[in-house]
């Protein structure tokens, strides 16, 4: 299942800072258009941490997911249920949703995309069975819960979400629990279908999650994605969006709240290779920490508009809010345009600090410090959380964020 390696000597190079580093005598940086991909873990060199696409990631905390030492001795259970229902299980699945457990050689596996880093390839090479959920018609919302394998163990996972033509569905994928997980999620949207996808990471403190999301958007299909990354020790998610036909529309919104010692990394690639498609990426991270520990967020936003992708409309946006000292937000937007015929393209990135002056101003109006911080964070994340249209879920996430704040807000 190996896809031919098109060029780079070092596998998995990402294009960020391409312009910045070029000409400085360093190894040339591959463009996103030449990104190496393969289903086979052995096709990738073991990353040491200095490669472009790993340079922000704390490799020592990856529990060996990247270097072959992880034994994948655990299992990450995947359960599907009607959203909002307490009891999980395939029996509670609404009409229009079918859940299958399929073998590696199922013809549909791989329709979403191909791994672009060694951990995703390791997960792909190791999984035995995949969970495949098909949405047809206008089913009620579904929740898919992925539970980590447990503290001290490692697991791989494979999930594919697919729609039939003209379907309109909502699905929530919730990651919880402990342990280390490397997984691939394929999202395959049929022509004219629409999927609202919410992915939450409410991991336990010890959890490590390195995930790849492969989104394949059919003609005139619409993806509305929202990701909420709260828990875990190291969480690194790499969504890739590709369009199979014109008229596709993908919006990826996300938020992350990193506190003391946490590393949250989001690496997005939107690959425009067909005409008349739209992409909109909007990610926001808040960070807070305490002395001796660092909170770290990384956002990489690559948008590639290939020569054939005429009349593309794209915008990507990252904002980070640093609430305390001992926090670091890296943000690398990157727009590569290979055609002159685009409808609109822009990117923006900004990192701001909630500083003493702002706190003083709010407090000088009687607002206590903890309320002031809540006000600022709630306002900051509102734009993302408002996209979560399931009220119970949104409330739960809001209170989860406030609980995070309370940890060091005191």
């Amino acid at each position, binding site marked *: 299942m190996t896809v031919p390696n098109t060029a780079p000597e070092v596998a998995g190079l990402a294009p960020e800072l391409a312009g910045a580093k070029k000409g400085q005598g360093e190894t040339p940086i591959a463009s996103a258009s030449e990104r190496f991909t393969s289903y086979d873990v052995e096709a990738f060199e073991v990353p040491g941490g200095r490669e472009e696409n790993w340079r922000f990631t704390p490799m020592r905390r990856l529990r060996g997911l990247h270097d072959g030492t992880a034994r994948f001795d655990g299992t990450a259970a995947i359960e599907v249920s009607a959203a909002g229902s307490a009891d999980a299980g395939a029996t509670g699945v609404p009409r229009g949703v079918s859940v299958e457990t399929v073998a590696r050689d199922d013809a549909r596996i791989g329709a979403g995309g191909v791994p672009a880093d060694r951990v995703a390839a390791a997960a792909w090479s190791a999984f035995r069975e995949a969970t495949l959920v098909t949405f047809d018609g206008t089913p009620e919302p579904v929740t898919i819960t992925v539970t980590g394998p447990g503290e001290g163990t490692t697991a791989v996972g494979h999930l594919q979400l697919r729609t039939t033509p003209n379907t309109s569905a909502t699905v929530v994928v919730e990651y919880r629990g402990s342990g280390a997980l490397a997984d691939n999620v394929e999202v395959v949207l049929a022509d004219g279908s629409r999927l609202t996808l919410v992915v939450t990471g409410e991991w336990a403190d010890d959890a490590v999650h390195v995930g790849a999301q492969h989104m394949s958007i059919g003609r005139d299909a619409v993806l509305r994605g929202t990701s909420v990354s709260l828990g875990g020790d190291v969480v690194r998610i790499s969504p890739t969006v590709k369009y199979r036909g014109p008229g596709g529309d993908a919006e990826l919104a996300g938020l992350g709240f990193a506190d003391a010692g946490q590393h949250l990394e989001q690496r997005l690639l939107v690959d425009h290779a067909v005409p008349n498609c739209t992409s909109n990426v909007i990610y926001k991270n808040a960070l807070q920490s305490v002395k001796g520990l660092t909170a770290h967020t990384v956002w990489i936003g690559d948008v590639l508009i290939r020569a054939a992708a005429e009349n593309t409309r794209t915008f990507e946006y990252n904002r980070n*809010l640093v609430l305390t000292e001992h926090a670091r937000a890296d943000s690398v937007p990157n727009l590569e345009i290979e055609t002159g015929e685009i409808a609109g393209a822009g990117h923006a990135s900004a990192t*701001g600090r909630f500083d*003493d*002056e*702002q706190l*003083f*101003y*709010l*407090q*000088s*109006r*009687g*607002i*206590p*410090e903890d*309320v*002031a911080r809540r*006000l*600022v*964070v*709630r*306002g*900051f994340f509102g734009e993302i959380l408002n996209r979560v249209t399931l009220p119970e879920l949104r409330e739960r996430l809001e209170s989860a964020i406030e609980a995070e704040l309370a940890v060091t807000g005191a």
Partner: protein
Amino acid sequence: MSTLEIKDLHVSVATEDGAKEILNGVDHTIRAGETHAIMGPNGSGKSTLAYAIAGHPKYEITSGEVNLDGEDVLAMTVDERARAGLFLAMQYPVEVPGVSTSNFLRAAATAVRGEAPKLRTWVKEVKSAMSDLDIDPDFAERNVNEGFSGGEKKRHEVLQLALLKPKIAVLDETDSGLDVDALRVVSEGVNRYREGGETGVLLITHYTRILQHITPDVVHVFAGGRIVESGGPELADELEKSGYVRFTGSAVDAAVAGAAV
């Protein structure tokens, strides 16, 4: 009836060359129902006094007392001071991205009043307070002070004064940066707030113009980190004519004061 009492207040700021004393022995008492104007040259420490009363972390109180109705203000946190009834309209209001003005006002009113105002009456209250100050209703949805013009920020400070109804309000150059009409509107706002006679106003200004709208009971001259003279409204007129040279003895300060007028 409230009283704010400042006794022998010394304040310094940390600089690269160690602590620098800015206030050296401010004595001042203001009671509800009174309006005091403080005038003084640039850099004399007027804003420092205002910030020290409000509790800005940059300023260190090295000695002295500040009491509100006998309560030790200096022992309170910034938000406790505001809830106790102190208010500072800042010379340079701070932008708070991500927080809408309406959410901010409601959070402040909730904190100061001790309970969340009823939504229906609150919306009306904010609307009418905004229209009193000629503030466009759209400002409610904008982030606090973000991108506001200088004059808009000042109006927004007075809006908060109107909604929070403090016992003692310090207005630090609220008149600077206002056009003629805005000055009138803002002064009317302050006067409405004074009307009840329940509140004291400490008005820091460089200009006698605002004193024609808001008549002070007492005018103080602030120089070299303390109050050096106090008198009636006529003192302001004298300052307007002759500057601060009589109080500072420095030609440079006089020039600065002259430029400010």
